[in-house]
């Protein structure tokens, strides 16, 4: 397994009496593209702010690239981020703004700046003042800053805001390419869940400041995939019968009485026949499955499944 690059335990942050983060435990591994999914005000941005050192946590501990909160400043040059809206100096051009931050990080080669601008399709706009850029262009510039000089970790908070469909597609390709070729770890929040689903390999669902579910893509697929649910009086006997007669391999037993069968080749009628003939009582048998949106709603609302 890859090495964790971010880990947090019991992370809590309060604004007044409201807990924006409430005992958050997370682990993100090197090379992950981790999607953080939650409603408005769920705590996504606060989580990003704490992990990037912009806000301090009230309690709990965390490490980024093996450095604890107190030592995090020494590795911040290896972290890129776009948190909330992109913020730049309005009277400087796009290129000058990136040059300013490049100088801060000790990057003297302008080729890095040009590469970051090209990655987000902003190279031709580099001489425009920031205040004259459109919302989408500003967002692209914010992403270019996050990508500057190939950091080890990139935090992107709602990166698709204001970006046109072509831009979203280009951004997706850039993220996948940088992740694949340079091993950059991404932590991304977005409300476009289908987009996140396309690129992420790890998912964290956050609500009310708490991480309510954390799973890999395979686990999410299993949760969302359509399946045949079988409720019986004897799940282990049912499994034995189905393994024997249907060569069943892809299934889970959620509790002692419910079996979820993910193999699409097995029809409900056939499953029912085998179980009844084998003497297993079937109290319910139905098709089910969720989209990622459905899954998200089901776990935050708990009643829409």
């Amino acid at each position, binding site marked *: 397994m890859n090495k964790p690059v971010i880990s947090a335990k019991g992370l809590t942050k309060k604004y007044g009496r409201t807990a924006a983060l409430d005992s958050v435990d997370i682990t993100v591994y090197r090379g992950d593209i981790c999607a953080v999914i939650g409603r408005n005000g769920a705590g996504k941005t606060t989580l990003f702010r704490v992990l*990037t050192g912009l806000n301090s946590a009230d309690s709990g501990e965390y490490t980024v690239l093996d450095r604890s909160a107190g030592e995090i400043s020494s590795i911040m040059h290896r972290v890129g981020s776009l948190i909330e809206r992109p913020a730049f100096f309005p009277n400087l051009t796009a290129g000058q703004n990136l040059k300013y931050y490049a100088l801060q990080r000790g990057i003297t080669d302008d080729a890095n700046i040009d590469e970051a601008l090209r990655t987000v399709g902003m190279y031709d706009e580099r001489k425009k003042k920031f205040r004259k850029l459109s919302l989408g262009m500003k967002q692209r510039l914010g992403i270019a800053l996050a990508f500057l000089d190939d950091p080890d970790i990139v935090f992107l908070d709602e990166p698709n805001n204001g970006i046109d469909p072509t831009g979203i597609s280009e951004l997706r390709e850039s993220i996948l390419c940088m992740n694949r070729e340079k091993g950059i770890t991404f932590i991304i929040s977005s409300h476009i869940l289908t987009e996140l689903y396309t690129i992420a390999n790890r998912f964290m669902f956050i609500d009310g400041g708490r991480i309510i579910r954390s799973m890999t893509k395979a686990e999410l697929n299993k949760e969302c995939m359509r399946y045949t649910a079988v409720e019986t009086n004897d799940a282990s006997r049912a499994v034995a019968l189905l393994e024997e007669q249907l060569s069943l391999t892809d299934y889970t037993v959620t509790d002692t009485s419910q079996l979820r069968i993910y193999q699409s080749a097995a029809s409900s009628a056939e499953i029912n026949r085998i179980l009844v003939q084998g003497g297993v009582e079937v109290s319910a048998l139905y098709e089910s499955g969720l989209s990622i949106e459905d899954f998200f709603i089901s776990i935050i609302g708990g009643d829409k499944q």
Partner: protein
Amino acid sequence: MINMIRSDIYRLLRSKVLIIPIALVLYAVIASVVNIAPAAIGTTDLLGLFQAETIVSQPMMELIKEKSYGELQELPIKVLREMTLSSGYQYDRAALSCNFNMLYFVLVAAGVSINQDFTCGCIKNTLSSAVGRGRYFASKVLVVNLAAIAGTAVHSFIIFWVSRIINGSAVSAGGAVVFRSFCRQIPAIMALTSVYVLLAFVVRSGVLYNILGILLPEGFSLIYLLTDSVKRLHFLQKYDIMVIMLRSVTDVALSYTITSSLVCAAVMALSYGAGYTLFRRLDIK
């Protein structure tokens, strides 16, 4: 740290915001030199260039004290210049004693370097991806101090040279005296800068920073108000930053240089201590 300073200088040189105070300072220098009125911001139409009212220097006032202010104002500037030039008045040294006016330059330098980071939200890009808070704070302190000292130095020596060109060497204290006077002012300049740095970190709204920054000198006058009625506290009046600036030029006693430098160091320690304590715990928006 060096990278932070380089980036700040890069931005300061491209932001063009400093052009306004530099232009104002240059205008004031020329107007003041022509009038031989060190603190003058207003000026006269001696060269047919300026129309505003003349503010007459204190030495000149003493020189012609038998005349009323009204009569004085009606005197042609040419006559006033001749009277002053013949009095042995050291214009450049007197002008240095008014370097407190450079606070407007410091106000803008701290505003551009620190306050603008907060108002445009750019500070989050720096703190989340470049440096920690300690280095950020230290580099800003260094940059604003460098700008303040360099700005005051340039201002002082422009006065020296412009005065020599326009008024001749008769009203000059000489380069060595000007340089020593400027050096003695450095602790006061740094103390003044520390107060503006503190203000920039405390007041993170651009408009409020500018208003409070302009009103800040009035705050220094509080020392007079608070100590005026208590005779035992009168000695404190010597340590108002404005007075330290002035006396750094006129009072060359070593004891005063030492005590005033200690006061300036205390102001800096308090300002930077308070500023960093606040900044370290601040949630960046």
